[in-house]
């Protein structure tokens, strides 16, 4: 078996019991016992064991690629919609530059689309040392298969060491497919990326179990090391017009641009004035809003702040707001600079979707609402009094 307790060394201290996220370890007769049906071989117990009594044998893959050293450079998949580069791509270029300093390598953007030339300068000024550009009319909008085909071909040709991509609807769909085809390790929704100073490999940290635990993940034996990263976690560089970059145009035979699925229409919902995932500020309402008509006051506040409007599951399930606005475990995970929770009690399912926000403001008339336990600033009062006053006050401040 791949994991075992060296009974002679085990002191029965139970540190491993506490470390195990799967409750697979128990102390029986003063010795640790691992329930192999529950154990996921995650290795969380190994570093906490002071007498080093837990042995986890990680088998080395036989079919290990021998050309790992040929893989160089950090790539960022540049996501565009209707020809416009998405903000998460700039955030990733910023992070990629930071990592590239530690690896002393270049940062490349991969841009697939049609008529997207106008944004090349912006990409270069914000961190791309060069850009692989693939343009064709068939590539105007994202589709899984052609984009996968192209990315796979480019990776095989140029061999990047690391590939980063936004954890967006497009990114998570595309990159999962690419990772399978090229057999690479992929870590989803990272909130932290670093380079191991000794091994020079990518350290990928991400939340799991709805943010209750964090895991650091590596893909030492496969290339590229692939990760998706959430919106708003990384910082873009400020544009530097002096930066120079090279454009590498690529094109492939048209069969690679074919898609079995057909994109018939793109429908933008009018309610989504500001995209939740990209918003710096979110004003969110819950059961305490009392009804759909009352979301009007939230929308006014959001309008003044240039914010997006969110909703708790309770508000969505009551039909007050469309599902696309739902924040939380069964909705979206967001991390804006400011999250204003109005009439939201703060059930754990909601908290896991927004607790990485930098500042949380809670407005609720129940002083015992769990939302106050995570709030940076709390107002215990009737939201129907507070929100219009807040909108008014911000309006005054901005006028000055």
């Amino acid at each position, binding site marked *: 078996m791949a994991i075992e307790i060296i009974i002679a060394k085990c002191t029965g201290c139970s540190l491993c019991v506490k470390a195990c996220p799967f409750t697979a370890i128990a102390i029986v007769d003063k010795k640790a016992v691992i329930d192999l049906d529950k154990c996921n071989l995650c290795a969380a117990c190994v570093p906490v064991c002071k007498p080093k009594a837990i042995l986890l044998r990680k*088998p080395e*893959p036989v079919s290990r690629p021998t050309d790992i050293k040929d893989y160089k450079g950090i790539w960022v998949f540049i996501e565009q919609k209707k020809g416009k580069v998405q903000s998460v791509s700039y955030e990733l270029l910023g992070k990629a530059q930071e990592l590239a300093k530690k690896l002393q390598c270049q940062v490349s953007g991969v841009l697939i689309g049609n008529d997207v030339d106008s944004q090349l300068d912006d990409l270069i000024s914000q961190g791309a040392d060069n850009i692989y550009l693939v343009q064709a009319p068939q590539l105007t909008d994202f589709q899984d298969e052609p984009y996968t085909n192209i990315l796979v071909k480019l990776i095989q040709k140029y061999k990047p060491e690391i590939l980063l991509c936004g954890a967006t609807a497009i990114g998570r769909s595309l990159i999962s497919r690419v990772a399978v085809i090229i057999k690479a390790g992929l870590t*989803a929704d990272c909130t932290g990326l670093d380079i191991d100073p000794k091994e020079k490999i990518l350290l990928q940290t991400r939340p799991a179990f709805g943010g209750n*635990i*964090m895991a650091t993940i590596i*893909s030492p034996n496969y290339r590229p090391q692939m990760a998706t990263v959430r919106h708003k976690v990384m910082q873009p560089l400020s544009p530097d017009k002096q930066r120079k970059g090279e454009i590498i145009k690529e094109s492939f035979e048209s069969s690679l641009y074919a898609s079995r*699925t057909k994109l018939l229409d793109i429908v933008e*919902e009018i309610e989504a004035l500001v995209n*939740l995932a990209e918003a710096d500020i979110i004003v969110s309402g819950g059961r305490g809003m009392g009804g759909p008509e009352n979301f009007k006051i939230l929308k006014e506040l959001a309008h003044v702040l240039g914010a997006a409007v969110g909703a708790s599951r309770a508000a969505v399930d009551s039909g007050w707001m469309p599902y696309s606005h739902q924040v939380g475990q069964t909705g979206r995970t967001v991390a804006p600079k400011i999250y204003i929770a109005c009439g939201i009690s703060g059930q754990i399912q909601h908290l896991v979707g927004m607790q990485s926000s930098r500042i949380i403001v809670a407005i609720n008339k129940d002083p015992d609402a769990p939302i106050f336990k995570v709030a940076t600033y709390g107002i215990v009062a009737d939201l129907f009094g507070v929100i219009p006053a807040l909108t008014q006050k911000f309006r005054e401040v901005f006028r000055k």
Partner: protein
Amino acid sequence: MNIIVCIKQVPETTEVRINPETNTLIREGVKSIINPFDMYALEEGLRLKEKFGGKVTVITMGPPQAEQALREAISMGTDEAILISDRAFAGSDTWATGYILSSAIKKLGIYDLILCGKQASDGDTAQVGPGISAHLDIPQVTYVKKIEEVKDNSLRVERMMEEGFEVIQTPLPAVLTVVKEINEPRLPSLRGMMRAKQAKIMVWGQKELNLDPQRIGLCGSPTQVIKIFTPAQRTAGQILRGEISEMVTELVGLLKDEVY
């Protein structure tokens, strides 16, 4: 229509709590449930079968106790359930899991549609659904919020995006991953529960699936977890005091530099 629904047994996240004294996870007595997103996949499979006939097969990969999740799926009305379980699968990451599940789907042979939840609530990766379609080399549509039309061996679906949705036509067979908006899952029927109790659940392991040992478990997984830790918990901040107008003025003062 032959439909395969892939589900995962997960701990009920709402019950995962942190012990404030030791700052560790309390998972004792935590209930296992079917991943909430997979419930929508199950429901959609059952609705399609009711409309167009055919069969719904549910599969899950996990430890022996994941059988419970399959019985729950049977109680909702699925026709057949297969547990994919083997000690050799432990430590599989999303790459290896996609490989194992797609191998089981190949062994099942005839399928028109594979349904998955958009992601699991424990891992949150959203990688296994697209992974299965890549291993099978069939089309995928992720984040499906509505199946608009089923016609001539193809589907027209709505795919949820950040700003709205896309309308996509896909030939079958295909993999769809679904979001909550697609339906409201039914409750198990009494008859279903009786059936679930007696149902025989097939178990397929490495031998039955004849898998490449280099592609499963820890060995077949490109990613490795090297550290697991509890994040710093957010602590309560400041409760503002006074009349509403005073609190609002104070809050605007605190936030205005952030809002600029």
